[in-house]
């Protein structure tokens, strides 16, 4: 049993409810105790920092101060939302880097009877905790229903691997952690080239054309790689690709139906947990047809898809070498 402090973030019981539900079940299964910190507040997302610096950092630091009080034995503070994770990690790191900011934040916190010493709480993301503290062997040991037959595109988005203030990631643009985790669950993992490209974040709200274009790039690419679904670690990425896919289709006259689920949902399914309790069915772009492929061999999937079309040879192409008893194209056998 390892204990962690837990910062859920606002979307966990709203738009990202499936994430909250599935990570609770999965952590229980893996023996991770998540102790939610008391009366936490919003991290400010990407909005508050663009309005006023000191209040934005004081807002984040209130959570850090609460976490540092709740700490019993040096437990790290875990967040599962990428934006929450980054905000917490950035506040901690910038309060160290710019003592002037740290001082100002603490003067403000003092107005509420709080204090935070930068560096006193270790801030981590759930994916990284599962990869490094739990480990893939332990994950594999819990798999009872491997995801064989399911082709998944791992999609990390931006804010987890970048800018990485605590230097936890070896690769900021093409990390393979989520790939390895999904492989351990038995899934067929696509080498997804856009795995850390942007989903547009709040652009769907303030400049829809820009946001929808970024969503389109991701969905197009996942489709191109014949993924059955995309897998994410971030509630913002999930809602953009899941819920705005309809508007994106209308905008670009496309008919994409690319489901996107949280990595914890797939972990739960592989661990044999109840799909409903894992929040399956909460997505707008239904993932259930894709999830039906689990457990079916590639032949069964191919048979369902119907006979493969044989490619006709191009008439302008150079002749291909052929067996001696084969008649050359266009000639009639005597």
């Amino acid at each position, binding site marked *: 049993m390892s204990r962690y402090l837990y910062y859920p973030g606002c979307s966990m019981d709203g738009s990202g409810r499936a994430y909250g539900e599935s990570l609770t079940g999965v952590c229980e299964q893996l023996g991770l105790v998540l102790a939610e910190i008391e009366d936490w507040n919003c991290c*400010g997302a990407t909005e*508050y920092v*663009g309005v006023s610096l000191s209040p934005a950092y004081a807002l984040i630091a209130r959570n850090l101060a609460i976490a540092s009080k709740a700490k019993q034995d040096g437990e790290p503070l875990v967040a599962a939302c990428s934006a929450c994770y980054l905000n917490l990690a950035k506040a901690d790191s910038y309060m160290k880097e710019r003592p002037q900011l740290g001082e100002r*934040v603490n003067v*403000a916190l003092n107005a509420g009877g709080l204090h935070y010493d930068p560096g006193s709480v270790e801030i981590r993301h759930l994916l990284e905790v599962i990869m490094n503290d739990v480990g893939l062997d332990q994950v594999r040991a819990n798999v009872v229903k491997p995801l064989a037959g399911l082709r998944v595109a791992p999609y990390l988005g931006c804010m987890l691997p970048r800018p990485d203030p605590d230097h936890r990631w070896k690769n900021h643009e093409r990390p393979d952690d989520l790939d390895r985790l999904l492989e351990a669950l038995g899934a067929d993992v696509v080498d997804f080239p856009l795995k850390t490209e942007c989903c547009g974040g709040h652009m769907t709200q*303030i400049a829809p054309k820009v946001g929808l274009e*970024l969503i389109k790039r991701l969905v197009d690419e996942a489709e191109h790689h014949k993924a059955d679904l995309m897998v994410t670690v971030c509630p913002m990425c999930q809602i953009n690709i899941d*819920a705005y896919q309809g*508007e994106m289709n209308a905008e670009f006259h496309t008919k994409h139906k690319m489901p996107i689920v949280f990595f914890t949902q797939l972990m739960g399914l592989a661990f044999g947990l109840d799909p409903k309790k894992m929040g399956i069915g909460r997505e707008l772009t239904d993932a259930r047809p894709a999830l039906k492929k689990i457990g079916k061999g590639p032949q069964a999937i191919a048979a369902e898809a119907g006979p493969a079309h044989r490619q006709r040879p191009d008439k302008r192409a150079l002749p291909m070498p052929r067996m001696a008893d084969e008649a050359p194209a266009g000639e009639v056998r005597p």
Partner: protein
Amino acid sequence: MVVAQVSPPVTTNSSVRFLEEVSAKTAGVSRLEMCIQCGTCGGSCPSADDMDHTPRMLFAMIRAGMKDEALRSNTPWMCVSCYHCVVRCPQGVHIADVMYTLKGMAEHTKSYRDKIPPHFAGVFVGQVETFGRSWELGLTARHYLRHFILRLPRMAPMAIGLFLRGRIGILPHRIRQREQLQAILSRAEELERVS
């Protein structure tokens, strides 16, 4: 890309002052003065096409003291905070944080040309100050009614779908110690204004 008309650079103390002002208002050490104008940032940017100026151009303008032009540029508002430029910048400039600073300054002086992004940020921040949490339904409803009324027909199925799947909270969550939070935030705002 639309390149906005810019006035000729002025090389007086005011240019140094603006660079310093931006740096001072940025979280962490901005390293803005280290920029070597290589353009890696713009080349890495997924929304550069929609920007008035690439980040490189914007940083050159900041150095030249072109405060009004820099604060009127839509570039910071088009930044999606993907941090591609930040990890690629050979000089380690905190580009995304500088963009946040410029947004804040443009908001303070009301220099922005498109009011939709600052309005969205304003409503979000207002909710966080009132409730201590963000409230997705209140935020989007208010924002769409104000700015995107024509998008509503397209959005309706999505809103209904999210509601039926239990992904929209009708009422905002409120934290218990709202007064404490508000005291912290208003003290922080006072400190921000004197600096």
